[in-house]
């Protein structure tokens, strides 16, 4: 059903889908105000996960995951939970400046990963890459050798872990519950 959906389609005739309670232009009468004219044109399926992901399909995306990983790949399929299929995926590693002594600039590298199926709950956000900018390194960052960046990234992780442990310890001393102070995800 979703495969055939397009945001250019007219709104489906009643019965309205359950997520869009009846009302002119799909705006439920609960808010009482007649919707502004430009909203009236928006079909109801603008407001489904399907419609939001539809125009990202087959585009090159940056996907940020809950564990802090960044994947760059082409979105080939998805569902309402934001479960994703990514093709030609690369994992992009970043090392902020100052991780190693005498490292004034950040470093990044791509690792080829291939095909990914990502379970939706692990997705933080999907970003469409600006094709004009995607080949430029981020401000303050330089492309570096994978092995180097990998090693520095591990080092950074270890540093962060030590710092996080210290923080949790200090907070626990002040009576804060350490259980909900998970790792920092960037």
């Amino acid at each position: 059903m979703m495969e055939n959906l397009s945001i250019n389609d007219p709104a489906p005739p009643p019965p309205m889908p359950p997520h869009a309670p009846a009302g002119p232009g799909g705006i439920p009468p609960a808010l009482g105000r007649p919707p502004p004219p430009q909203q009236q044109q928006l079909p109801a399926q603008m407001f489904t996960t399907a419609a939001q992901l539809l125009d990202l399909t087959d585009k090159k995306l940056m996907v940020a995951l809950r564990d802090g990983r960044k994947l760059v790949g082409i979105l080939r399929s998805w569902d309402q939970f934001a479960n994703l299929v990514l093709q030609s995926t690369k994992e992009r590693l970043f090392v902020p400046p100052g991780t190693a002594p005498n490292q004034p600039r950040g470093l990044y590298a791509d690792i080829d990963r291939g095909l990914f199926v990502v379970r939706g709950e692990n997705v933080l956000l999907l970003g469409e890459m600006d094709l004009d900018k995607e080949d430029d390194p981020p401000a303050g960052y330089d492309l570096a050798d994978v092995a180097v960046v990998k090693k520095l990234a591990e080092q950074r992780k270890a540093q962060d872990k030590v710092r996080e442990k210290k923080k949790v310890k200090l907070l626990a001393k002040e009576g804060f519950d350490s259980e909900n102070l998970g790792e920092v995800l960037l």
Partner: protein
Amino acid sequence: MLFFSFFKTLIDHEVTVELKNDIQIRGVLKSVDQYLNIKLDNIQVIEEIKYPHMSAVKNVFIRGSVVRYVHLPANAVDIPLLEDATRREAANQGAKAK
């Protein structure tokens, strides 16, 4: 469904979404769905230097479950209307429960 409807009234306004990992993204609200997943256009990341992976990204889909706050433009929110709608929804729910 009240907040879904509410967010729909904010479409095409500029909002700032703060995620549970502290990143803040400002952009034009383009779409929202029943999970409160949010789509932003023309984004700009606060403290961009800390988030190099966002530098080439122009629009984002944010999963509703990772949103901590949405900062709204105060002049786009009709507070009395929202209060009224909240009470009406509560009354409806109460009536349904009986």
